[in-house]
């Protein structure tokens, strides 16, 4: 079991998704428990993998039994294990949440397909995270992307247009990535990441390698919606069903960020990624622009989900910023922020889904007295919002702490200013909502009768509460997370 865990963590959701449809055709109600089983076993296996990595070092799993450069290898180190836990945890939480929300938002016939594709998406993301082969990463990237397109497309009535743009942008990104793989292949003849790490250093002067690096970064930047290639994201995440936005927002960009970190610091050496090319400068400024742009656009939105989507654009900026400054603190901050941001995003999007479920809309200006109707949900909203702003002791503070220390260490004062300024703008954006939901009396003047308590069903409430409380817990555990996982992921030379 323990040795096979890397293969099973991807095989189980895939196999369950294959039997999901025949089972669903017999009895539709069985899809949900099957999905829960699949995501839970992923979660369990991800913990086993993390345990193995922490206690007995990196895992190398040979698929098909072939040794690495020839066969495909799963190379799992601390970063992979860490990301696997994040994705499987989020997928489990969201799948628990999904039942009622999906029943409300989708046609009944589509529920079977929804769960199948959801599992495929989970498997795709886990596959990206586990693999140690660049081309295999592309294949799983495509599984995840296709599933992502489909899940976005079943959203509200403007979803198809958003999806189409998403498909076009996503395909460009994937093709650029594939080109990058091809260019590395033509100069090294290998696709294995560990092998490439050994083969590449003598070739750093080669133009092919430079261009490959550029294509990788641009391709991944499209996938993680880095400004100015973010155009697909706000539309797509706004019009997707709430469950989907929650999952996709929390994991898709983070997995992309993982791919970026892998390429920049494992496939290439940090010295090449950050010094040979002006990556630090370009990515740093692009990330700053992303933070500013995301926050400013978030302030201008009236749609809660759209606002969150723009904040996500800004958060991607944080992660990229931390990577680009090129020192230990910044990198730690980035990796920690991947965790924190996915939890904050999933929490906020799930809460938005809960609001949608009860109120039927999500216009910020028309949400009145929600704290009386759904006190627990809105309490969670406040915690998540505070964490987003980065107020201690919530999780969001600690990653920002490292990010800013990293920027200070690198003497990038502008980045520090941008980080703080965007925190401020996020604060403004959230307090706008808190004010209108908590303190604005209802406009239809029957406010005298206290609105009745009307919480969402338990299966939706529980994930929200769990994930939000975990924001606080993660805050306190930051040190341990860094000690046991993140500090081993910092590339050598930092």
């Amino acid at each position, binding site marked *: 079991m323990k040795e096979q865990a890397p293969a099973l963590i991807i095989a189980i959701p895939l196999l369950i998704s294959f039997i999901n449809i025949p089972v669903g055709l017999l009895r539709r109600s069985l899809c949900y428990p099957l999905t829960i089983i699949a995501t839970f076993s992923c979660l369990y296996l991800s913990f086993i993998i993390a345990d193995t990595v922490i206690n007995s070092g990196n895992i190398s799993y040979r698929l098909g039994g072939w040794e690495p450069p020839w066969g495909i290898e799963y190379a799992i180190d601390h970063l992979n294990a860490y990301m696997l836990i994040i994705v499987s945890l989020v997928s489990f939480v969201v799948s628990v949440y999904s039942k009622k929300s999906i029943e409300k938002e989708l046609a009944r016939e589509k529920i079977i397909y929804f769960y199948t594709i959801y599992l495929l998406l989970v498997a795709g993301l886990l596959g990206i995270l586990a693999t140690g082969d660049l081309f295999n990463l592309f*294949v799983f990237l*495509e599984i995840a992307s296709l599933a992502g397109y489909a899940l976005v497309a079943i959203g509200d009535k403007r979803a198809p*247009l958003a999806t189409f743009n998403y*498909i076009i942008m996503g395909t460009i990104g994937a093709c650029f990535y594939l080109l990058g793989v091809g260019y590395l292949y*033509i100069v090294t003849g290998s696709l294995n990441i560990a092998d490439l790490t050994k083969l590449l250093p003598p070739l750093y002067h080669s133009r092919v390698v430079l261009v490959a690096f550029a294509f990788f970064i641009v391709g991944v930047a499209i996938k993680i919606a880095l400004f100015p290639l973010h155009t697909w994201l706000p539309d797509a995440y706004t019009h997707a069903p709430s469950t989907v936005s929650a999952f996709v927002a929390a994991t898709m960009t983070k997995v992309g960020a993982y791919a970026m970190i892998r390429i920049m610091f494992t496939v290439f050496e940090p010295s090449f990624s950050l010094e040979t090319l002006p990556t630090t400068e370009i990515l740093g400024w692009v990330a700053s622009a992303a933070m500013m742009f995301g926050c400013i656009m978030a302030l201008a939105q009236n749609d809660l989900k759209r606002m969150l989507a723009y904040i996500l654009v800004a958060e991607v900026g944080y992660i990229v910023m931390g990577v680009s400054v090129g020192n230990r603190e910044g990198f730690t901050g980035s990796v920690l922020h991947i965790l924190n941001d996915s939890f904050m995003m999933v929490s906020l999007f799930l809460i938005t889904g809960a609001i949608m479920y009860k109120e039927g809309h999500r216009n910020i200006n028309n949400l009145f007295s929600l704290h009386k109707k759904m006190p627990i949900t809105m309490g969670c909203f406040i915690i998540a919002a505070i964490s987003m702003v980065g107020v201690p002791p919530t999780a969001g503070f600690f990653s920002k702490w490292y990010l800013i220390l990293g920027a200070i260490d690198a003497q990038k004062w502008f980045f520090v200013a941008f980080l703080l300024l965007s925190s401020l703008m996020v604060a403004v954006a959230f307090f706008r909502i808190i004010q209108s939901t908590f303190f604005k009396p209802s406009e239809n003047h029957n406010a005298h009768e206290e609105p009745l308590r009307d919480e969402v069903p338990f299966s939706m409430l529980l994930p929200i509460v769990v994930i939000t409380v975990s924001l606080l817990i993660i805050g306190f555990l930051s040190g341990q997370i860094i000690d046991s996982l993140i500090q081993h992921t910092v590339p050598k030379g930092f």
Partner: protein
Amino acid sequence: MDTMDFIIGKYNYWIYIVLMMIGFYAMIAKNNFAKKIVGMNIFQTAIILFFISTASKTGGATIPIIKSEHLAAGAQAITAPQYLNPLPHVLMLTAIVVMVSTFGVALAVLMMLYRKYRTLEEDEIMAILKMEKD
């Protein structure tokens, strides 16, 4: 004639670059969504052409299927220069599948779009959306 050699020696690459640029341009700039899909297809095919080009081997290498005379001579006698590099072919088989899957999904979404707006032109859809908003 070094330059000439250089250009002719890599003509496959030039063609692939041209095709890729055509596809890429169509994907970004075309107003019609169906044309964007066509561009997507051209783009992906161009990348496949590039990969296949990397597999080529001069000096008598043949298609990567072991010939029966080599089989008869014993499996140990087979050497790499006798056959083309199979790895890019394998990768591209997968890429073609990915391509056709993306194509199918894009078509499905395109049909959803057409059901909704009865047009495939981006600007017309935008105009409809604007009208909906007002």
